[in-house]
């Protein structure tokens, strides 16, 4: 080996070794994950993404059903508009006329909403079940969760557990299917659908059906059709935390939640004090017709509104009124004690959470004037349809507000937000919310006065 060759070999070997070191020592390294700062929205940004969960009251249920005419004045829509959302940008499960009510419209048909036909309440129309999907559900193809996720009939339990009518607490209630649409999306419950939108502001008005379900059946029983308050309290806290935690896990911020508590059944025209019932039904006073002869439940406190139809059908032969038409002292106490328990639980849950605020719907509705809290038909008999429609805050079903009533609720929620966040969202001008209980359909002069049996059945079913 000569000197050149040796040097060459040494150099080559050194070079190869160096290159191997270079190549082996240097390679791509997996970076460590960096931290992102997730900013809590403040000021106007809190209103940038508003989502509503709840039941029929949130859905904009009016006149015994869900239809665009009412939905466009749902309190969530009114709040969204007040927050500056452009028309049509707050997504609701809009339903075309005649809407979807829950009354019996004959086999193979879906009932529409109730309307005032000049003398009585009747259905605004009906739709073959086969056509419901294609003709009524206007927003069924919206690719994400609705911003208004109110499902008529939903209980507090349903808000966290129901994915369809089949597994809800009101089996057969297809509003769950229309609004949660889990045939497309899989099994996602209401509160998680809300969280999926990453809301900055949530309104939550659940719990009403936990008492109303029993109350409107006429036979409320704690633990059967009325939720026990202790169970309610645990579920309510779980719901608030689940919404909060799920939104946080998705977005890194905590949403502001506005809750509302449960109004007294006595605040609605549906539950008529027995004296009012006698007057509306044209019955004599207790000195002529003693309570014991009028009611099976002799200590009846409230009479349900559909009783008027029953009485019109059956006449005096229908007396005494079967027990499901009335709430007696005990039954009234069951419902009112439950509502008191719910509202105490809601107040506690709100107090324990810095980002949750309460709209006291119980106090607000109890503060309505007599006229505002009186049923349209009662006012109509006395003052005529125009004044009646301009006076009452309740829709034809007697338990859900009309659009002016929803405006009243929206303003209560807006006031709660403004006080909580020191903002100045404008109120809804109630004078602009006119309610047409005829739905623009020409009045049928031949219709029989009163509450039709069909409409009464609708009113029996609407809360479930």
């Amino acid at each position: 080996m000569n000197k050149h060759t040796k040097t060459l070999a040494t150099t080559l070997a050194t070079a190869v070794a160096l290159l191997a070191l270079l190549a082996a020592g240097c390679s791509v390294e997996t970076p460590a994950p960096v931290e992102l700062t997730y900013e809590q929205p403040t000021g106007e940004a809190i209103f940038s993404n508003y989502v509503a969960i709840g039941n029929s009251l949130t859905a904009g249920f009016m006149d015994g059903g869900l239809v665009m005419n009412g939905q466009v004045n749902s309190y969530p829509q009114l709040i969204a508009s007040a927050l500056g959302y452009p028309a049509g940008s707050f997504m609701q499960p809009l339903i075309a006329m005649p809407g979807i009510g829950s009354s019996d419209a004959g086999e193979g048909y879906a009932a529409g909403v109730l309307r005032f036909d000049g003398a009585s309440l009747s259905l605004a129309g009906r739709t073959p079940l086969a056509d419901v999907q294609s003709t009524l559900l206007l927003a069924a193809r919206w690719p994400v969760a609705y911003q208004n996720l109110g499902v008529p009939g939903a209980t507090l339990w349903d808000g966290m557990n129901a994915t369809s009518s089949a597994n809800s607490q009101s089996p057969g209630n297809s509003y769950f299917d229309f609004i949660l649409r889990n045939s497309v999306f899989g099994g996602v419950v209401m509160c998680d659908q809300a969280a999926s939108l990453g809301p900055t502001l949530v309104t939550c008005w659940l719990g009403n059906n936990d008492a109303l379900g029993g109350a409107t059946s006429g036979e409320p029983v704690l633990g059967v059709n009325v939720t026990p308050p202790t169970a309610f309290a645990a579920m309510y806290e779980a719901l608030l935390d689940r919404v909060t935690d799920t939104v946080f896990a998705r977005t890194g911020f905590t949403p502001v939640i506005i809750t509302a508590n449960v109004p007294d059944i006595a605040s609605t025209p549906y539950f008529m004090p027995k004296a009012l019932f006698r007057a509306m039904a044209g019955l004599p006073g207790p000195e002529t017709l003693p309570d014991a002869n009028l009611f099976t439940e002799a200590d009846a406190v409230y009479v349900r509104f559909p009783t008027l139809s029953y009485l019109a059908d059956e006449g005096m032969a229908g007396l005494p009124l079967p027990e499901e038409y009335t709430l007696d002292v005990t039954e009234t106490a069951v419902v009112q004690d439950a509502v008191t328990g719910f509202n105490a639980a809601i107040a506690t849950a709100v107090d324990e959470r810095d980002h949750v605020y309460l709209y006291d719907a119980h106090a607000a509705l109890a503060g309505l004037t007599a006229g505002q809290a009186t049923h349209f038909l009662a006012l109509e008999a006395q003052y005529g349809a125009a004044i009646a429609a301009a006076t009452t805050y309740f829709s034809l079903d007697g338990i859900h507000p009309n659009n002016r009533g929803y405006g009243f609720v929206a303003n209560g929620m807006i006031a709660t937000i403004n006080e909580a966040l020191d903002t100045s969202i404008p109120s809804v001008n109630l004078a602009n919310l006119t309610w047409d209980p005829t739905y623009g359909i020409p009045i049928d002069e031949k219709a029989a006065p009163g509450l039709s049996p069909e409409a009464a059945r609708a009113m029996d079913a609407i809360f479930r």
Partner: protein
Amino acid sequence: MTRTRAAILLAGAATLLLAGTAAAGGFNIYEAGARATALGGAFTATADDGSAIFYNPAGLAFLDGMAVDLNLMPVIPSSEFTGAIRPDGSHATGKTVDQSFPIPGAYWYRNVGDLTYGVGLSAPFGLGVEWADPEAWVGRRTSYDVDLATVYVTPVLSWKVEETVGIAFGLDIAHTEIQLNKRSAVHFGTDPTADPYVDVLDAKIEGTSRINVTPMMGLMVKASPKVTFGVMYHHQKKMEVRNGELTLTNVAPAALTATIDAQIAALGGAKHDGVTDLKLPHMLAVGVACQVTEKARLEFDAVHFGWSYFDALVLDFETNPLDQTIREDYKDVLQLRFGAQYQVTPKLLAMAGYVRDESPQPVGSISPLLPDANRNDYSAGLQLRATERITLTGTYMGVNFDERSNVEGGVQQSFETEFNPAGSYDSYAHIFGVGVGYRF
């Protein structure tokens, strides 16, 4: 070998050019020859083989006879991505697939008296970033596979003005192929634990540019027996892609298939013609070389890239709703290149180099399309004079990217944040070069 055979060789090298990858700042590839690469690309004031046609054609003025230099430099890049920590504590990850891009450098020149003429083929701009598992890759809605290849064919004429001064002029005749693959998504679904978007379209954009011709030039001054200065300039280019085509494929889940089909139909079908301009920066290199001893030579180059010319990629389709502007906002950068060589034996030359390469990419445009970063390159190589006529060169360069994040101060700084994932990238590229020179 005749000139015809040389031309065939050049053409053969061109077919090897599948795609490039960024081996210098942005998507520049400064590796045009195995010997120059071994010297860290500090070659402007040395430029003593065929690759001078790229690095400084004035160097050809000082070469004799006729030669062919063929180089092939496989670039093996890899990148990893780690997503920023999500509110739930999780983070995404991703890595590129193993790929190798053979970068060509093929040159022929002939000296006649004081003139030397030649032609070269190089690929100074290219990019190839393909992310593994494209269906799940978190950045797929920006890009899951991009290929960009630019070929320069450069005829030059070099004139030895006097014994110590050479100047050269040439033309960069360039052609670009570009392909981008990405997914498009819509907000769909109601599950708060799932990705709020689902992929509905696969979009492939491909096109080739018109031939673009711009001037280039070189100057070499042997200021003293030991010190040489060199200057090289390649003009910026606007590569006009006029035959671009976008192909949309419906990849939506069953619940959306009909909707997306309808949307594709509403756009007028699955294929759409489009145009774009790819703006390539100028390169201006100034180098000084010093023959320190009889056997040792050092060079230092500064290379200025006019990357600020690359401000945006504007995709203009005949179907206007598909138009897209990808904001880039690159800035001009100066690369520093150091090279050293040592004549170990009369037949064996050892070389090494170092490059400090500042990224022209602002934090806002870091994306799966091109996750650039500052780099340190280390190179070494050997050249063996095998026979009187034949030289063989072997080179390795390691391109070590700094880790870089598009998150600063806890906030994602990207120009587009909806589909460009927040997180950090690290990259590395191996470059292996082989060169064969033949002196006629």
